[in-house]
């Protein structure tokens, strides 16, 4: 009897994998070769720009001139400004303290058992926003006031994003409930607000908030520039959040609401104890995806003159010490990396939650 012969080389091991996945036929081979060509066109210039040709030392723009490449020293010198903007040096501990507090309350929440969950939630959603607002603006309990026009950089980006997210969730739930309400006046008010906001670009809402809000307020009453933008941004966020939550509520099987009614629960109990918890859990991945979109959209506040991360990078070019052809591109590429990493991690998180939810559904 013949001994078993080994499988053909082209079907096993590395060679088999390459054959089947890269060179399975003439068209496949052509595709692979053009893909390699594309990589050859893209990767070396990027590596050149970031590392091989890049400038590594120096302290001003003259050190970064002569060729088109990444200017690491600019990043090194400006990093603190990218984070704090022009927040006074001796007060920056307040920003740090607020950030540390936030991380301290948020991180354990992921691992905490049900016993610690409630105090942590209270700390994160009640104590932390108030203490942060107090710390950053100052003016009370002996803290020097820091006007918001001195705020800048990543700190402002985070303030806009977190404020928008924090306001948009409750407001979005309220709008979604109003849109699903039986009362026609309430329903139409909500539909009108949601559709108007979703039908126009964010930038027009920001323009409206920063230019028109002062006109609509009584004479002599003025609202802080950053606060105006925060109001506009969170209204925008709430409209999108409302539609997602409404989607979750309408996707629930009608039996849930009927069962709650049969148990004698009123409207608020049905919503708060039965429908909303299920709907929110179902749309959690979509909520995270909206957060990602909102986080990216925070860059738009730069257009109405708020010094967010992008605004600080834009402004760096007006510094005569750093005015050069490589300064601004360096800032952009760095920002691209920061945003990419944050958004990518968040999208992984949302994908994981979606898988987990689907698994729970299946094993039920």
């Amino acid at each position, binding site marked *: 009897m013949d001994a078993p012969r080994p499988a053909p080389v082209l079907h096993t091991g590395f060679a088999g994998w390459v054959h089947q*996945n*890269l060179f*399975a036929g003439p068209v*496949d081979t052509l*595709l*692979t070769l053009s*893909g*390699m060509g*594309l*990589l050859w066109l893209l990767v070396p210039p990027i590596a050149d720009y970031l590392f091989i040709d890049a400038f590594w030392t120096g302290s001003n723009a003259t050190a970064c001139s002569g060729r*088109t490449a990444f200017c690491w020293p600019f990043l090194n010198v400006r990093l603190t400004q990218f984070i704090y903007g022009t927040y006074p040096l001796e007060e920056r501990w307040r920003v740090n303290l607020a950030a540390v507090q936030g991380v301290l309350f948020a991180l354990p929440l992921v691992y905490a058992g049900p016993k610690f969950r409630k105090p942590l939630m209270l700390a994160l959603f009640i104590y932390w926003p108030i203490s942060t607002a107090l710390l950053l603006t100052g003016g009370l309990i002996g803290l020097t006031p820091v006007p918001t026009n001195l705020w800048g950089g990543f700190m402002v980006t985070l303030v806009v994003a977190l404020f928008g997210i924090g306001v948009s969730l409750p407001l979005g739930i309220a709008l979604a409930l109003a849109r699903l309400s*039986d*009362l*026609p*006046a*309430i329903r139409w*008010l909500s539909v009108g607000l949601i*559709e*108007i906001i*979703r*039908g*126009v*670009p*964010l*930038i*027009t809402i920001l*323009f*409206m908030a920063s*230019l*028109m809000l*002062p*006109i*609509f*307020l*009584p*004479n002599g009453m003025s609202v802080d520039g950053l606060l105006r933008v925060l109001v506009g941004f969170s209204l925008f966020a709430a409209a999108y959040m409302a539609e997602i939550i409404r989607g979750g509520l309408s996707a629930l099987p009608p039996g849930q609401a009927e069962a709650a009614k049969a148990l004698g629960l009123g409207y608020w109990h049905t919503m708060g104890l039965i429908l909303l918890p299920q709907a929110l859990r179902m749309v959690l991945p979509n909520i995270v995806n909206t957060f*990602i979109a909102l986080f*990216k*959209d*925070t*860059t*738009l506040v*730069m*257009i109405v003159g708020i010094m967010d991360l*992008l605004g600080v990078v834009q402004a760096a070019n007006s510094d005569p010490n750093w005015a050069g*052809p490589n300064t*601004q*591109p360096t800032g*952009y*590429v760095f*920002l*691209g990396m920061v*945003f*990419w990493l944050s*958004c*990518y991690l968040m*999208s992984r998180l949302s994908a994981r939650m979606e898988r987990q939810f689907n698994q729970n559904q299946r094993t039920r």
Partner: protein
Amino acid sequence: MRVLAMTPKPVSFWNDPKRRGMAFQVMATFAIVTFLGLAVKNAVDNLTARGIASGFDFLGQRAGFAIVQHLIAYDENARYIDAFWVGLINTGVVSILSIMLASILGLVVGLGRLSRNWLIARLALAYVELLRNVPLLLLILIVYFMGLRPLPGPRQSLHLGDLIFLNNRGLFLPQPVFDAAAPVPIFLTLVCTVVIIALLRWTWLQRIDQGRAPAWIWWAFSGLAAAPLAGFALAGFPVHLDMPALTGFNFTGGVVVIPELVAMVLALGLFGGAFIAEIIRAGILSVAHGQLEAAAALGLHRNLQMRLVFLPQATRVIIPPLTSEYLNLIKNSSLAAAIAYPDLVQVFAGTVLNQTGQAVEIIAITMLVYLVISVGLAGLMSFINRVPKLRSA
């Protein structure tokens, strides 16, 4: 036997859900109306205090500023309303071009994501992940300041033969110029196209009805295809291309596409393409594999499998998110303001607002325009989605 009381116990006045609902609605409406009323009163007070006349009379005043790209007649002496139209048309131009680019890129990358070729699938995935996770505004700035501004001057233009030139002044393309005799063959082409489409439909119905189309149909098609060509030949080919040519320090002739438009279209197209790729991929994956197998088992030709079984089901999944992505692209074209491409927001809500100070009217008009576009397009797409062939079972 006790008779059960059939009438429910009367509810107390305050707990009647109907009355409560009514009261709640009246209160909410009253609150909103009061709020709006106060806002309007404040606005009128503030505007009179600042000496700004409210109303839309300003639209007829002289604008006094130039706009780089205008597809309709416009100069400094034009009125503000003309500037509005120029901005609106420019928004339309950038939206349509970027929707086209995004659709093509999205289709290619979406199919690439599903390719059995490992490298192609990975490259497509990298494209999607790279572009989806970067703010659009940053992408626009990167494309504009790192891609187009550093391009060489007109003398060292990048070029494709002698047809297309790209430099820091913009993109220079050949422009077709129609002579006096051109309308006749062009009209002929249009007529022939319409007839061909009608005839294709008729052939299709004949095939269903008789099993085959009459033999003369192929002669008809060839004749209809040849007629426009003959028409152009008889008219002596009344179309020629106006080529861009370097004269002195810049190009003359042809069409000039300003670098801001090139940057906007590239950035919006790349960004939208990543989202559309995922929409297309989801649409393709949504059609169960058994559908195509069943179609093959019925003996349908590969083309018919696609046309009758696959595409109707896939498009039903694709069209709604695709519409909202197109709307997103139109709304996002407003980011043009960041690189001074003269779109509606930059020209009207920017320059005109700064010159006239009519913030309320201008922002209201701008928002209304986008709202009309959104509602109109959403309505159109929901109409398309209601076509019976595409309706869900």
